């Protein structure tokens, strides 16, 4: 199931900058990479514009970006405590990337890079690896006590359960975001082929809501996982 018309792909074809449609069909479509770079470009340009002339009495864009980052920082302190503020750049970057990726779906001719399992898998694997790296860096080898539970003779039971639970985390993170975004796209395609006049609008409004909610859930789960690696073992 391919996206019918993508703006950046059309632009690249017209300017002969990259692969043509036949080459793409042969080698495989990589629109999610293109639009992931487009999202990054949007975020970098926004950040550069907001920080050009920093002042104590902020202008409009700086005010807006500060409000957004303040919300993320408040959520971070509530969930992870004081030790968590060191991981604010990672979590805020992931959160803003997912937010802009999800919202790009509203523009006609743009596809959200999170509608592809590869982008979400990359983000979820990053979170998964960071959980364990942070845990080992914080606790050393005692990090393994997180997996064993409180009673020593239940270890052969607790260890496989904990390992399976940990392995289920990147799976559920990536699949949840992928299912929401790709499902929204598929539903929109079906509505547009059935009744294209005004009927897809409620679905698009729900799409905006889902974009924000899924960003929030991904960010919150990231904070909970990293906070769980940081906390003391019982």
């Amino acid at each position, binding site marked *: 199931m391919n996206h019918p018309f993508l703006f950046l792909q059309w632009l690249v074809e017209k300017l002969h900058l990259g692969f043509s449609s036949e080459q793409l069909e042969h080698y495989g479509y990589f629109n999610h990479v293109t639009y992931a770079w487009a999202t990054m470009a949007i975020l970098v340009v926004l950040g550069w514009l907001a920080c050009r002339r920093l002042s104590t009495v902020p202008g409009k864009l700086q005010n807006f970006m500060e409000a957004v980052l303040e919300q993320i920082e408040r959520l971070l302190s509530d969930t992870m405590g004081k030790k968590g503020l060191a991981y604010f750049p990672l979590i805020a970057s992931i959160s803003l990337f997912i937010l802009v990726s999800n919202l790009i779906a509203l523009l006609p001719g743009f596809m959200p890079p999170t509608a592809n399992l590869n982008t979400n898998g990359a983000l979820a694997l990053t979170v998964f690896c960071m959980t364990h790296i942070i845990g080992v860096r914080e606790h050393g080898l005692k990090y393994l006590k997180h997996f064993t539970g409180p009673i020593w003779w239940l270890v052969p039971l607790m260890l496989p359960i904990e390992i399976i639970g940990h392995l289920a985390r990147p799976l559920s993170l990536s699949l949840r975001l992928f299912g*929401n975004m790709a499902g929204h796209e598929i539903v929109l395609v079906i509505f547009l082929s059935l009744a294209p006049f005004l009927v897809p609008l409620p679905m698009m409004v729900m799409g905006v809501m889902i974009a924000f909610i899924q960003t929030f859930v991904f960010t919150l789960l990231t904070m909970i996982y990293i906070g769980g690696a940081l906390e003391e073992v019982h």
Partner: protein
Amino acid sequence: MDYFSWCVIAASFGLAIGVIGTGYSQGLAIKSAVEGVARNPGASGKVLTTMLIGLAMIESLAIYVFVVSMIILFVNPFTEHVVKLASMGVGVK
């Protein structure tokens, strides 16, 4: 019956059965959230936030079922194999 008929039946019935539990559980979550806000309107911010997180978690179970249905319908991994067997004239239609 055909392999592809069974695929369609499995996808649609699986989705319908998967949504039953999701709908009921989300109804319970919203019921508790509304009761909490009715008792204590000052805590409505925190209650609503927790409710939204809970709803997204429960929703993700329905999304897993949806993803499997879409895989069965659109990127079915056995289509080539079945078509090859059918063109060879073996019993599977």
